[in-house]
């Protein structure tokens, strides 16, 4: 967006102001996320700069604390189960929805996507009431059920997106050559939509891993997850251990979502879509 040579002085000034504004917005976007990383290596329990010294004591505290480790264990159990459930259910549904002439597609789709449209507080409230009557409150299966509901829309969306432009004559060719439906799925369809499925799985994982509101409503101290532990940490007394936890979470999100982005590009290449 180089300025043309015929730009007026006013335009030049405006151009500079515009650039400055953009730089400020970028700082606003990035600094708040990145600033917790150096603070997590602070040798003192303060959040002020300059830091008096560098140490790993907060990481030591994080990995040495039973509470934090239990929370990580809970979060991992829940998130992995959710990933498995949401990915299987979501992928199957996306395959069905992408068939031509699916009856009432728009209506069914809006019900399947609803969990990410409805504010999570409302879902959490309804789940609290209903799971209470089922005896699922404060249990790990209850949280898995709730998180799977919140995570499946992401799988449906990513896999449906991968399936648009999917060449259905490939499956017809495979069945025409005598492959049974399961073989067609595992040998023909799955390899082609795999990037979408993996993206969906990662989204499902991160949805459950980061989810806090439902957990606030239906978890007990024994079923405390990592976000729940962070939440009470921030509420009671904000300590740098939380910045250590936050740093680990930031790195994890960056890793996961970089993978998603790479997969998306690969999928576009596989399907011959130029960005």
């Amino acid at each position, binding site marked *: *967006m180089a300025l043309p040579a015929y730009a*007026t002085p006013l335009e030049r000034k405006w151009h500079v102001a515009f650039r400055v504004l*953009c730089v400020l*917005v*970028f700082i606003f*976007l990035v600094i*708040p*996320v990145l*600033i*917790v990383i150096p603070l997590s290596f602070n040798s003192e329990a303060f*959040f*002020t700069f300059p830091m008096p010294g560098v140490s790993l004591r907060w990481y030591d505290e994080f990995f040495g604390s039973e509470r934090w480790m239990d929370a990580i264990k809970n979060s991992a159990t829940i998130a992995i189960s959710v990933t498995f459930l949401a990915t299987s*259910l979501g992928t*199957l*549904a996306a395959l*069905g929805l992408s*068939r031509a002439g*699916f*009856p009432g597609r728009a209506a069914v*789709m809006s019900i*399947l996507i609803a*969990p990410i*449209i*409805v*504010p*999570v*507080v*409302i*879902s959490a*409230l*309804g*789940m609290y*009431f*209903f799971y209470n009557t089922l005896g699922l409150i404060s249990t790990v299966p209850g949280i898995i059920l709730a998180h*799977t*509901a919140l995570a*499946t829309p992401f799988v*449906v*969306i990513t896999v449906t997106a991968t399936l648009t432009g999917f060449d259905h004559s490939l499956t017809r060719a495979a*069945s*025409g050559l005598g492959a049974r439906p399961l073989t067609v799925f595992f040998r023909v369809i799955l390899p082609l939509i795999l990037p979408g499925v993996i993206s969906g799985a990662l989204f499902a994982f*991160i949805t459950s891993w*980061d989810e*806090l*509101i439902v957990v606030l*409503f239906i978890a007990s101290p024994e079923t405390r997850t990592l*976000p729940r532990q*962070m*939440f009470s940490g*921030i*509420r009671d007394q*904000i300590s740098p251990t*939380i*910045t250590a936890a*936050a740093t680990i*979470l930031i790195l994890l*999100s960056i890793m996961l*979502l970089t993978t*998603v*982005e790479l997969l998306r590009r690969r999928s576009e290449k596989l399907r011959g879509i130029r960005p």
Partner: protein
Amino acid sequence: MVSTAVPAGGLIEGSAVLKSHLRRAERTRKLRAVGLVLPLFLFIMVSFIIPIGVMLFQSIYDPDIRTLMPNTAAALDTWDGADLPDETVFAALVQDLAAAQKEKKAALIGRRLNYEMSGLRSELVKSGKAAMTMTAGPYKDQMIAVAPIWGDRATWAVIKRAARTYTPYYYLSSFDFEYTADNDVVAVPEGQAVYKAVFVRTLGISLLVTALTLVLGFPVAYLLATQPPRIANLLLILVLLPFWTSLLVRTTAWVVLLQTQGPINDLLMLTGLVDERVQLIFTRFGTIAAMTHIQLPFTLLPIYSVMKTISPSHMRAARSLGANSFYAFARVYFPQTLPGVAAGCLLTFILCLGYYITPALVGGPTDQLISTYIALFTNSTVNWGMGSALGTILLASTLVLYFVYNRLVGIDRMRLT
């Protein structure tokens, strides 16, 4: 799969057979597609749609008094409300209270009645204890002697209303209306109205945050859209980085930043803008800063994806026809970005309405949005009816806005990254 052999019976007959074969094949295909979707559909029904239905139901379903005070509720059905109820009602009351007291449920009655008339709770506990010891009537005077509330017509009006199994009470309360002793619906006196202010605050903060994200996001989207792809992709990472980190982590970051002994105050002191450290955490300023930061990518990305599709030749054409750059921008470029602006702003606005975690951690008591009250009523004060009514109102507003969003953008095209 479809049989293509034409039977010997002639072309017309053959095509009829073919058609029925095709229909059958189509039907199998359709059934198979439905079969694939069915597991998830049922799963979402059980784990999500039914819970939402239960919540909607809870907002009008109010069986407590009818089950805890069955005799009184039945006796009051014929009460006209004009004067104090007669002895039969009092007898029923004593019977119910004694039974409730025995099962330690008098406090539950008190809690429900207390919603509509504060102070009833302790009186009920007292009356419950007294009712246990009463052996013979007439009960009317004995009860009034134990607790004067029984001599007040308003108390009985509250009980008669609360004895309805289905009640509009929680919705009326949500909009700051209440009943009088004569069952008229009136607005709550100015000083006691709570929820109107909460709704206005929720809307106000959501609008302000939406406007801020637009003001900050639009220029950056324009910069990204007009840079060569290599630079644009690099800059895009700066937008996606916060977008990818979890909401709780970003909120944590703001809690750290806004501390009185924190980095922002460090910077303010260093630059000499302030003489002593200022309170930033638990303020409206902090809430709005954090929410704007979290929502900025949601507004920015849809605008960017629309801007990417606008051909730069439009601007060049406008310039070569004599428009200066501001005029060309305002009349040629900007109108084309409006679909993206609408999509981004609407999405941010909808998401802001449901904010809970960020105001809870960064804001003060007067910065809480509607979701905080929903959570409070459910988890702390256990007034499920009120939580559900507020939840239903939030749900309805969100769905209406999504309907608009769907018309404008299409929910299918919602972008994840």
